């Protein structure tokens, strides 16, 4: 088989970190080639080099046998390299066709373009109406816009950066079918991910990066997921284990919780109901933007709701502010670390006091005991293995994984009655993620009620006792996790409430 792209000795250093260190590998024509690695392993820098966004310090590339050193993305596109980014660059107010036209060097007439978009979308099984406004599309449909924009250029190499993070399992299947078809037709695909099962089912070659270096070239179809993970992380991973402890009485009860969105781009919460028992982990899955942030804000007290919608041990918390809920024992961990769960420019001591002041007895007569805050920060750092030069550094100088361990540790160590976390391991390396999941399970083992909101289905299946799906601000019924298949989960995420009685499945006002 012919080699499409060859990288040899690519090195790129940034101040304080070598992002790519002497990286060499080859991508065959028509191959689906996985680039596997943790956050910070250098995947992004590498593909940005191929796409002409980053200039390497050393090393060279050859594309179809000719030297390839794109000065800018336009040059890379002209040479046949296309890329779908993890974050889309689309204008919400414009139609699909207009968005596609904006990305082209010499756009044809919109009507002709619409015809071509329809043709390509049919050919590759990516249903998309060129006249629809992008603002009305789901994340999966927006991704299709980006893919079709690339396919119209007839690329010989298509780079996909973490494409499935915004998709439901069904949408993933559609995407994979498209990618396989492309590969059969001779287009190479460089597929970036840290999801091992996906890579094993889709890719026929894989390059594993760790700390900027190539640490392995494997055939993912014949390598086990555990083996891949071990190479990716560099050490053996143990799956989190529940520490026993029986499930007790209902602790957290949410009933008829409805809330208008905080902004015009938010999602309203509609009639949310759930119960969580002591010692239990309830997993709430859902594609991003279906009300996760709003649900967390309603539970944390950042936004208050109608009376008796949020109760804990029979006590009505609905009208209480965050600090009062903390005192009562309901703690939360928001998704966004910098700027929400932690103040980026403040020290770890101050960030420890951010939520710990009330429960950790740091206040007397309105005055703060900074000594106790320091003690609490040191305790979090020690017990959660937060790698930091000390408690005096600003939160934003910590790596994502370390800061996440700090903010989760801060809540876990306050001995909560109920802990609600949103995306607890988002953008966190596998070791830190495992430590965080274990801490959540241990906490449940001690009798706390835990709610984990996450878009990572593997995570939810691994640690939760029951699973419920959040879709368009509605929460489906919770189902025991051990009976669920991926297909059922996909249906639940898509909004099918097949577990409910038929007359309730249809919303009354439709």
């Amino acid at each position, binding site marked *: 088989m012919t080699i499409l792209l060859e990288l040899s000795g690519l090195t790129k250093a940034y101040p304080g970190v070598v992002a790519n260190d002497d990286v060499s590998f080859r991508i065959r024509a028509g191959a689906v080639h996985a680039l596997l690695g943790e956050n910070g392993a250098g995947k992004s820098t590498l593909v940005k080099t191929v796409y002409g966004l980053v200039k390497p310090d050393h090393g060279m590339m050859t594309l179809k046998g000719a030297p390839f050193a794109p000065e800018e993305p336009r040059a890379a596109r002209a040479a046949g390299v296309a890329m779908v980014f993890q974050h889309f660059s689309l204008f919400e107010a414009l139609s699909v066709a207009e968005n596609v036209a904006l990305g082209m060097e010499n756009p044809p007439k919109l009507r002709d373009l619409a015809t071509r978009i329809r043709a390509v979308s049919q050919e590759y099984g990516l249903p998309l109406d060129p006249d629809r406004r992008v603002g009305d599309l789901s994340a999966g449909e927006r991704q299709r816009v980006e893919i079709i924009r690339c396919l119209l250029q007839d690329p010989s190499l298509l780079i996909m950066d973490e494409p499935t993070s915004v998709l439901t399992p069904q949408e993933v299947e559609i995407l994979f079918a498209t990618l396989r078809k492309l590969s059969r037709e001779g287009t190479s695909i460089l597929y970036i991910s840290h999801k091992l099962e996906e890579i094993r089912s889709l890719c026929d070659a894989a390059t594993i990066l760790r700390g900027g270096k190539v640490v392995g070239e494997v055939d993912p179809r014949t390598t086990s997921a555990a083996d891949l993970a071990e190479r990716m992380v560099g050490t053996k991973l143990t799956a989190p284990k529940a520490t026993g402890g029986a499930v007790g009485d209902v602790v957290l009860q949410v009933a008829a919780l409805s809330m208008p969105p905080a902004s015009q781009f938010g999602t309203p919460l509609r009639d949310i109901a759930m119960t969580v028992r002591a010692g239990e982990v309830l997993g709430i899955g859902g594609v991003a933007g279906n009300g996760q942030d709003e649900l967390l804000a309603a539970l944390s007290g*950042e936004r208050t709701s109608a009376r008796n919608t949020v109760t804990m041990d029979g006590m009505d918390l609905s009208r209480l502010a965050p600090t009062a809920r903390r005192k009562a024992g309901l703690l939360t961990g928001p998704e966004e670390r910098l700027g929400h769960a932690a103040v980026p420019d403040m020290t770890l001591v101050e960030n420890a006091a951010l939520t710990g002041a009330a429960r950790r007895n740091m206040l007397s007569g309105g005055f703060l005991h900074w000594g106790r805050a320091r003690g609490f920060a040191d305790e979090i750092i020690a017990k959660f293995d937060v790698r930091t030069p000390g408690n005096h550094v600003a939160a934003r100088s910590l790596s994502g994984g370390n800061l996440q361990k700090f903010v989760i540790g801060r809540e876990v160590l306050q001995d909560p009655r109920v802990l609600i976390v949103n995306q607890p391991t988002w953008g966190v390396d596998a070791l830190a993620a495992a430590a965080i999941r274990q801490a959540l399970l241990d906490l449940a083992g001690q009798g706390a009620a835990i709610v984990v909101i996450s878009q990572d289905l593997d995570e939810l299946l691994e640690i939760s006792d029951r699973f419920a799906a959040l879709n368009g601000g509605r929460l489906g019924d919770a189902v025991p996790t051990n009976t669920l298949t991926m297909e059922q989960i996909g249906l639940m995420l898509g909004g099918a409430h097949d577990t409910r009685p038929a007359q309730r499945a249809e919303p009354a006002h439709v």
Partner: protein
Amino acid sequence: MIRLERRPTPSRAWGAASPLLAVALTMVAGVLMFAALGKDPVEALRTIFWDPVFGEFAWYFRGQLLVKAGPLILIAVGLAMGFRAGVWNIGAEGQYIVGAICGAAAGLAFYPSDSWLIFPFMVICGALGGIAWGMIPALLKVKFGTNEILVSLMLVYVAENLLASAAVGWLRNPDAVGFPGSRNLSRWDASSNLELIAGTGLHWGGVAAIIAVIFAYVLLTRHLMGFQIRLAGAAPRAARFGGVNTARLVVFCLGFSGMLAGLAGLFEVTGPAGQVSIDFASGYGFTAIIVAFLGRLNPLGIVAAGLLMALTYVGGEAASANLGLPGAAISAFQGMLLFFLLAVDVLTNFRVRIWQGATA
């Protein structure tokens, strides 16, 4: 190629050095400006910065220094509190005027009594006047989400008209036939705010400024309210998550800065200014914004910044009297100080990198 690179943590060294560098750069720009105006720049700088403290007539100027620095520091401490929290009170000038009018009116209601209670009562009314003027933008912001920058600024012009109507109308001295302006409060024993220690220029306003500085410093570093103020300014979303009640914070910050501005106005009208007159508003409320930033929004820094700014006032007056420098030149000089400070501030959070040629 010059590029700015974000520092992982704000540089402490630059945080401390940038006011000094800004002062130095202002001096350089000032020299150029004075030279362009056809004055001897060295002479001008000496008249502004050296003579008031060490010159022949320093005995007079030194007193003036505290007279000017007192209200600047008092107002700036309050403003800094709000600026830390992201509450932008630009209308301290208006709160200063209203505080003075309220205090003066409250006192004059008892004229010509000589009870010792009158001055404390005037102080309280001055504070309340400032608070009330600060509450207007605060409540509008909390209830209707209006922009406090615009509302507080516009209220300065309302206050100025109020001042004019008081001076020529309802507070006019009935014994001074035809002249605008109230009775002279500094010559009425019950209301006069005199120098406490002869020759220093220290009056009750200076004492209030010292108390405010200490209070603000303790509040910011030790108290939960100060912590919440810093949280709200640094990361509003995290502050709400941490339990900060934003509405309460807005009311506190505008009320506190309004109160201090109102007090500054009261101490001014009973002391150095002496009466409610049309030209009572002297721009302290606006200059205090520069003082607050020059002092790094830190109460202790504000003391130094207030003294420096007072020096440019006092020295500037001397320069315009002795050298014929236009008054606008002094205002431009003060403006440059803020300009350079904000420019140099970038270095606290960013590092300058210079590349020679293209990198391969």
